[in-house]
């Protein structure tokens, strides 16, 4: 690790390789080796090695999160979504993973799926502000006709999300300008005939 701090990655990697020859499944050393790659910005190697690591240690949720973040930085949303799917399977009651998965689906343009996952996340934690905003955005983007049941459901959800967010800002006594900013956002995102 001292070599790592001095950025002498070659020497550091040699030492790690020798330790791994004796014990192939030393998780700590495997991780240090991964970090060397990341520090040198060798992203392709890093991703490949991290995938190999996860084949050995499938329950390491931090590693899955790290892989997800790396894929997001490379804008590979499909693979990032896969990582989060693994995490959701492991921790189905974690509202953060549901909400982040919904964020990725939204970024990919799959608003239906995003809406579903925002709703799961809000069922688990109705105070998740990102999910509330996400719900507002997805219902506004799902431009279905008002007359269908789905359309009217979207409108109701949109309105509900808006009320929850307004309540949050009022609860913390935000000043007028901030509330105005939020309201102008609502005007842009409200659907239905009664736009304020």
């Amino acid at each position, binding site marked *: 690790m001292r070599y790592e701090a001095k950025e002498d990655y070659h020497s550091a990697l040699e030492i790690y390789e020798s330790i791994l020859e004796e014990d192939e499944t030393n998780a700590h050393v495997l991780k240090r080796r991964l970090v060397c790659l*990341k*520090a040198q*910005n060798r992203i392709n190697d890093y991703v490949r090695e991290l995938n190999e690591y996860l084949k050995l240690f499938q329950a390491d949720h931090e590693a899955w999160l790290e892989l997800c*973040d790396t894929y*997001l*930085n490379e*804008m590979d*949303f499909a693979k990032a979504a896969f990582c989060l799917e693994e995490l959701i399977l492991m921790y189905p009651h974690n509202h953060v993973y549901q909400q*982040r998965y*919904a*964020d*990725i689906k*939204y*970024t990919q343009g799959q608003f239906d799926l995003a809406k579903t996952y925002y709703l799961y996340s809000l069922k688990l934690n109705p105070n998740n*502000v*990102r999910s509330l*905003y*996400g719900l507002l*955005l997805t219902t506004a983007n799902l431009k279905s006709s008002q007359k269908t049941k789905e359309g009217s459901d979207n409108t109701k959800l949109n309105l509900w999300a808006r009320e929850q967010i307004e309540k*949050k*800002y009022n*609860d*913390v006594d*935000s000043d007028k*300008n*901030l509330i*105005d*900013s*939020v309201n*102008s*956002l609502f005007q*842009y995102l409200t659907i239905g005939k009664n736009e304020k």
Partner: protein
Amino acid sequence: MKEISIGKLAYSKLFLHLAKYPQLSCNGILLSKPSKNSSVKFVDCVPLFHSSFTLAPAFEIALSQIDSYCQQNGLVISGFYHAFDNNNQTEPNMMCYKLAEKLKENGDVSFCLIVDNSKINPSNREPCFNVYSFGDDQKLKKFPGNLNLEEGTYETCEKLLEENRFSLINDFDNHLDDVKKDWRNLKLNENISAVESLSAK
């Protein structure tokens, strides 16, 4: 040839944002007053995120609210800054490029400030970032014009660091986690002005 200058407030907030999250990438939006001539002065900045930069929903909400804040205060969004977590990365990547493009679509000017991590030392007396803008070939290139900083900027940053003020800055990520935290950092703006007057010689 355009000239860019950056005010004390904008630079200090950028600096504090980086100081608060030294192990993560950070980014934020730069605001300036609209000007008819070809110079741009960044007067304020809004720190945005320190994680998950490529996700659309939070970004859309943030830009929408910042737009409205700009209208209330007569400012325009004129650029953004990004600091990579990797020490050696100093060129804009795909994400920076897309963001710069998006900002340019909605406004005339779009500058991309990439922080050079080797220059963030508080005793440094040159700007800690490189400025990129779109050239004629639609690629991000280093900005050839002049970059001016307001006098006393570096001293203010040093003082703020000494007094550990970086814990006071709130970015949009903090705001989304806890609505009480004001991404406009109005209280911090006052603090910075107070420090400015103390360090004025």
